[in-house]
């Protein structure tokens, strides 16, 4: 099973072109950070309530991304603001994307293709070799979003991440999404870190839009 940082990198790759779908870097950073934190929560390394995040177990998981995030959390104090932790971890999001890509290549899920655009500009693409994981995530989320099936905790995290990246169109058609919007809102609330990711991603996008319209 892929880690959530690996899942989000894979979900952000356009299946046919092997390029990342457009997403502001700052939003990606928050989503990548949220993916790592929610993975740690599902591994019982951190816990949260309505006010704080707590590191409850510092035992490494053997995953270099998650272990690095875990070791950096809560050094100064036992209880953290969820949003502060989210932004702290987001600082290394690009590095984590790079590591997640390397892992996906090593597992045979992707391959790296270097080329040139107009004979000058270097380009790099990551065509997907094995799309089993993408297909399984899509099938699983469709089942949860289009029925009243109770999600498992992993489904809830994936819905939070997909929604924060505005990737629901990858899972549902426009008509399905219109009908399922209340269901998406219901399920994305169910993880407290996920709620913080949604808020931070929305605020960041609003700031970017505001800056774009006032320049």
């Amino acid at each position, binding site marked *: 099973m892929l880690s959530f940082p690996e899942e989000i990198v894979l979900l952000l790759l356009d299946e046919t072109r092997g390029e990342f779908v457009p997403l502001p870097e700052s939003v990606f950073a928050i989503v990548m950070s949220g993916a790592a934190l929610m993975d740690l929560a599902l591994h*019982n390394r951190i816990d*949260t*309530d*309505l006010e704080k995040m707590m590191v*409850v177990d510092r035992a490494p998981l053997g995953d270099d991304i998650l272990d690095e995030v875990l070791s950096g959390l809560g050094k100064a104090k036992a209880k953290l603001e969820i949003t502060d932790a989210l932004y702290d971890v987001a600082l290394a999001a690009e590095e984590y994307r790079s590591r997640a890509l390397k892992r996906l290549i090593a597992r045979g899920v992707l391959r790296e293709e270097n080329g040139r655009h107009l004979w000058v500009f270097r380009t790099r693409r990551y065509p997907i070799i094995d799309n089993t994981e993408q297909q399984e995530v899509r099938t699983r989320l469709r089942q949860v979003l289009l029925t009243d099936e*109770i999600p498992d905790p992993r489904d809830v995290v994936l819905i939070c991440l997909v929604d924060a990246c505005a990737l629901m169109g990858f899972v549902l058609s426009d008509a399905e999404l219109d009908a399922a919007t209340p269901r998406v809102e219901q*399920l994305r*609330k*169910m993880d407290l870190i996920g*709620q913080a990711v949604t808020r931070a991603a929305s605020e960041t996008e609003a700031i970017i839009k505001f800056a774009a319209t006032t320049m």
Partner: protein
Amino acid sequence: MDIEQERDGDVVIVRLSGRLDSGAAPSAEERLSAALTGAPPRLAIDMSGLDYISSAGLRVLLVLAKKVQQQKGKVVLGGLAANVREVFSVSGFDTIFSIEADPASAVDAAR
């Protein structure tokens, strides 16, 4: 946390008290899964002694609710303290679970 269990006819009553957090989650998950005995299972959870629930605790209840749904059973929560109720409201768990004001009503609703 303390977990007690008794049976009232077809309904298994589980009483949770103390804190349902990451420390208590593994044993709570095990005990609650073991309480799914009937076919279909009918479960009333008395939460009146529960004074704290974290995300890890919510996940335990989510996994339980999923198992109950898969077995076409019923689970009803009762007697939530105001702070626990607030966690359910903020996280939307109050839209997943049947919640009664007190434990006795939860038992009746689970029948």
